[in-house]
């Protein structure tokens, strides 16, 4: 059973998504139970894969071969699709599992039956499976396919609230950007295939020589993935999508964006790690990251829509991660390692804090019927828990010391300062500005006189928010423990794990 | 035997070309449909018949399959082409395209 854990973590949610509609025709309670079972099983499998990857090294699973480890044929080249999970992939799997479980707990009471709950659950499972497939795969074309699964499932979820106009518009915009990004990735895959007649990441990584075409492919891959992640020149879709998607989808969308960052890491450090991972690309990514941070924070100042405000906050956090990746690439080892530690640790912190904020926004939308800041106010009188969670998430987002955001952001600032003090100063400034923005949002929405009636969120939604709050607090209190246990293997997999990855997939 | 193929092919390409040029020469939609449908269908019949003859000449399962499948394609062309043209002509008339220089238009009178 555990041998098959990587594929079961992907195939079981797919099977669940396919069967969910059929089960929902029979009985709704049965469907809920079935969905819970699938979700629990999937996250258990993700955790199992993570444990194996952290303890035994790279987990390899060959699809369709006589045995899972038989990844290469007699000639020494892989022909079948290989799942290869190293520390980084396992870490991303954990983030996806966290996001998925929280989203599931949340959505059972958030979605309404008459709005198409079965379809929404099904799409959520598909999105989840897509993210897991993206981070576990060791095959470039397969990566593209799962990228498209996440694109389509995410866009369908963003357009979930069809009785309004703006979700559909946001979804259309997102769809266009995602599809373009996916097509750029596909062109890059085609170029690499045409040059080396292979699709396996490890085999390609060994074969890549750094020719002109390889540079072209690297540029296309980075362009497509940055489009998918929502970095600055292509960030227009992200606030709309985050702001208009239903809350439980948003947290998985955040995980999806981080999967794009994961892919950038994979491409830069593993696929092109041998030939083309030059500091120039690192500076490019870092400058894009700082631009994303600044633009997003400046845009967040003027927002009057709570969801979009938080969405811009989420985009700025993405910028921090890109900054860390860039700095890590500028100096491989030394302070680069610190930067990567901060960046990768920031991924899970970001998923927790931004996710918590979005869940609160969803609860507010459900309770008050609107998320326009001028029309809100005084919600703290009735929504006590939500107010507390919002404050917690906001402080974590801004990086206030006892919370988890501080630990990772501090690492990023420190390393960035050593690379370029100006960048570090800009990042710090943006962080302070962000703090002001979220505190103003908190004050506008939850404090002050009571503007309208609101009913508190049901218990299931509170439990989901509570899990994330717990993650924020625990990670903030014991950052060293988690960095050592789960972040450090991922960082090592990025920085020095390329040889181990190639050896595990290609044998010898 | 080759002479037969060449003859059929020559007739087929000639009429297909006639259809394409009729498409360019005629003044309005209906006359273009006339030219295009009649000539391309007739030309395609001959072109495909050349292939059918070739298939039967080759013989065996391979040639037989070639001939049969080509005949099937021909059959589809024969029943779908005029129908599609009819649908287009009817649609054009309903969309308000008048026949150029028509001496009589009974369908217009009917409405």
């Amino acid at each position, binding site marked *: 059973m555990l041998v098959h854990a990587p594929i079961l973590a992907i195939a079981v949610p797919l099977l669940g998504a396919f069967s969910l509609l059929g089960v929902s025709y029979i009985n709704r309670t049965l469907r809920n139970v079935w969905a819970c079972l699938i979700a629990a099983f999937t996250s258990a499998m993700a955790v199992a894969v993570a444990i194996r990857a952290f303890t035994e090294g790279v987990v390899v699973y060959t699809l369709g071969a006589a045995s899972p480890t038989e990844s290469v044929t007699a000639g020494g080249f892989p022909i079948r699709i290989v799942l290869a999970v190293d520390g980084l992939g396992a870490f991303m799997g954990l983030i996806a599992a966290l996001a998925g479980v929280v989203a599931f707990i949340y959505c059972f009471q958030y979605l309404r039956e008459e709005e198409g709950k079965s379809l929404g659950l099904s799409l959520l499972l598909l999105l989840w499976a897509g993210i897991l497939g993206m981070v576990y795969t060791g095959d470039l074309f397969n990566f593209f396919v799962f990228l498209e699964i996440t694109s389509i499932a995410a866009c369908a979820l963003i357009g979930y609230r069809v009785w309004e106009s703006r979700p559909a518009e946001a979804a259309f915009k997102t769809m266009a950007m995602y599809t373009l990004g996916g097509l750029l990735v596909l062109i890059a895959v085609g170029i690499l295939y045409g040059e080396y007649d292979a699709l396996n990441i490890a085999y390609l990584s060994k074969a890549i020589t750094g020719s002109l075409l390889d540079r072209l492919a690297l540029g296309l891959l980075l362009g497509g993935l940055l489009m998918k992640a929502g970095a600055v020149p292509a960030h227009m879709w992200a606030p709309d999508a985050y702001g208009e998607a239903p809350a439980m989808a948003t947290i998985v969308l955040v995980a999806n964006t981080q999967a794009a960052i994961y892919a950038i890491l994979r491409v830069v450090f593993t696929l092109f790690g041998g030939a083309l991972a030059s500091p120039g690309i690192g500076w490019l990514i870092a400058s894009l990251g700082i631009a994303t941070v600044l633009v997003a924070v400046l845009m967040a100042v003027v927002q009057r829509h709570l969801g979009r405000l938080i969405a811009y906050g989420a985009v700025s956090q993405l910028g921090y991660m890109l900054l860390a990746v860039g700095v890590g690439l500028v100096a491989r080892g030394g302070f680069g390692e610190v930067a990567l530690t901060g960046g990768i640790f920031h991924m899970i912190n970001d998923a927790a804090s931004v996710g918590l904020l979005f869940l609160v926004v969803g609860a507010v939308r459900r309770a008050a019927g609107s998320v326009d800041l001028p029309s809100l106010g005084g919600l703290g009188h009735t929504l006590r828990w939500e107010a507390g969670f919002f404050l917690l998430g906001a402080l974590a987002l801004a990086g206030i010391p006892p919370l988890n955001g501080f630990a990772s952001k501090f690492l990023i600032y420190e390393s960035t300062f050593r690379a370029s003090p100006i960048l570090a100063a800009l990042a710090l400034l943006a962080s302070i500005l962000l703090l002001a923005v979220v505190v103003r949002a908190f004050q506008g929405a939850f404090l002050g006189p009571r503007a309208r009636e609101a009913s508190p969120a049901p218990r299931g939604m509170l439990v989901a928010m509570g899990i994330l709050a717990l993650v924020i607090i625990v990670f903030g209190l014991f950052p060293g423990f988690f960095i050592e246990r789960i972040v450090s293997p991922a960082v090592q997999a990025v920085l020095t794990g390329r040889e181990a990855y190639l050896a595990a997939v290609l044998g010898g | 035997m080759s002479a037969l193929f060449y003859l059929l092919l020559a007739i087929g390409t000639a009429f297909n070309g006639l259809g394409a040029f009729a498409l360019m020469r005629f003044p309005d939609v209906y006359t273009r449909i*006339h030219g295009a449908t009649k000539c391309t269908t007739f030309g395609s019949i001959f072109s495909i018949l050349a292939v059918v003859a070739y298939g039967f000449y080759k013989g065996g399962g391979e040639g037989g399959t070639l001939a049969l499948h080509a005949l099937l394609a021909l059959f589809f062309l024969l029943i779908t082409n*005029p129908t599609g043209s009819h649908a287009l002509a009817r649609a054009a*008339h309903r969309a308000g395209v008048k026949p150029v220089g028509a001496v009589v238009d009974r369908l217009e009178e009917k409405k």
Partner: protein
Amino acid sequence: MRKWGAWAASAVFIYIVYLILTLWTGKLGLWSPGELIAGAVIAVLGAIPLAEVVWKRGDARLLQPHRWILFIFYLIGPFFLSMARANFDVAYRVITGKIKPGIVRFQPHLKTDFARTLLANSITLTPGTLTVDVDDDTGEFYVHWIYVRNPDPRPEEVCGPFPAWARRIAE
């Protein structure tokens, strides 16, 4: 009962098409047993959704074999000849540009769908004429005539013997 008949007819039709497609697949016989079984299954299943479309009341007369022989004879003989004539006619019109178009109406007195379809498609493929519309109730044909000789023609003037053939084959 009629429902079952429609289903059976559709199934047989699908089966025949499938068998034509897979001719010469067997080693000794024309079809291998696998193909026969697979075709049967496909025909039985595929006929379920299509039965109500394929079969209409009064189609049974199309199953008489002499109509098929007539149809093939018609295809090879008069139809093919007038098609050839049609093409030279188009060539003549393309070169000289001599046209006097118009849409005329005539009443061929055909009742069944298949007869009307056969006539319409024949008209479209033969000299100087193109079916534009068919009146569902009265069965009147509206034909675009590339060189109108008579604004109110009899059927024979427009399309020669085709209505008689259509009646013989499909009515």
